[in-house]
């Protein structure tokens, strides 16, 4: 009689564990998704702030620097970014979006100046933040900036 009771309890426990395992699997998946979404949100928030900063600086230096090279040099001076051969600005960030060296970076920001569009009279450029990972170079956020400078077209 006692053995039968134990066996019954064992069966009950096994069925409980089965349900628990199923529920646990679903919960772990949800937790993992929440964790990834949280990381993605934090990355997007940081990227938005940095892109907005670079676009504001572009607005700020445009009037005094009609040439792309001069503009990029002025922006580099303010931000601490480096200018590459293609006249793009590059700056590397760690996971908390503090500027850092390339070898320890989690993200990097690229700012490209597209110059003056003769048809519209607008100067434009874009800033984008990407993952600094050879396996994942997705763009986290991209912001385009354009400004009309009066009397620039002859």
């Amino acid at each position: 009689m006692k053995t039968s009771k134990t066996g019954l309890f064992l069966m009950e426990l096994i069925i409980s564990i089965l349900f628990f395992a199923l529920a646990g699997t679903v919960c772990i998946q949800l937790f993992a998704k929440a964790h990834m979404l949280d990381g993605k949100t934090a990355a997007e928030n940081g990227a938005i702030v940095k892109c907005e900063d670079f676009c504001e600086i572009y607005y700020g230096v445009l009037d005094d620097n009609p040439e792309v090279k001069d503009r990029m040099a002025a922006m580099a001076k303010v931000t601490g970014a480096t200018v590459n051969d293609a006249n793009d600005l590059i700056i590397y960030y760690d996971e908390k979006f503090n500027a850092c060296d390339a070898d320890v970076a989690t993200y990097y920001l690229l700012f490209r100046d597209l110059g003056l569009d003769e048809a519209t009279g607008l100067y434009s450029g874009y800033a984008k933040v990407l993952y600094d990972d050879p396996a994942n170079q997705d763009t986290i956020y991209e912001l385009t900036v354009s400004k009309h400078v009066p009397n620039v077209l002859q």
Partner: protein
Amino acid sequence: MNTKSENNHVVDVIFVLALFAVFAVCALMLVSIGAGVYQKTVDDMNTNYNSRTAYSYVAEKIRQNDEAGSVEVADLAGNPALILSETVDEKVYSTYLYAYDGYLRELFVSPDFKIDSNSPEAGQKLIPVKGFDLSKVSDTLYSFSIITEDDQDIELFVSPKASR
């Protein structure tokens, strides 16, 4: 025969108890992982809220007062302050944005208001911050540094459109 039956019985009970213990430990781990993920999410939400609110507030204030000569960097009784001026009925009113006593504060004053060492206390508390610094990079660009309650250092650049 009796001994064998008794041994089986003991092993059965121990096995069931061990299984129950594993079940309990797994349940505890699951709850603990859930709590950890929730805690991290809440912390990140707070960090994002604090940084974005402080950042957006300063930027929007400048946008609201984007008129030639209305944005100025100075200090309020020794605290670095952003001064935004607006003219109402031919009187120039000033809004001071500064950090004092652990808060980003805003003080709106009439032209008759006399600034003294107690003035910073009069400002309305906006959001807890550990530091607020600002500088004029050029005629067309202002730089702000806000250190939030959770030690996040945010750098903000704003280029007023009417700066020239």
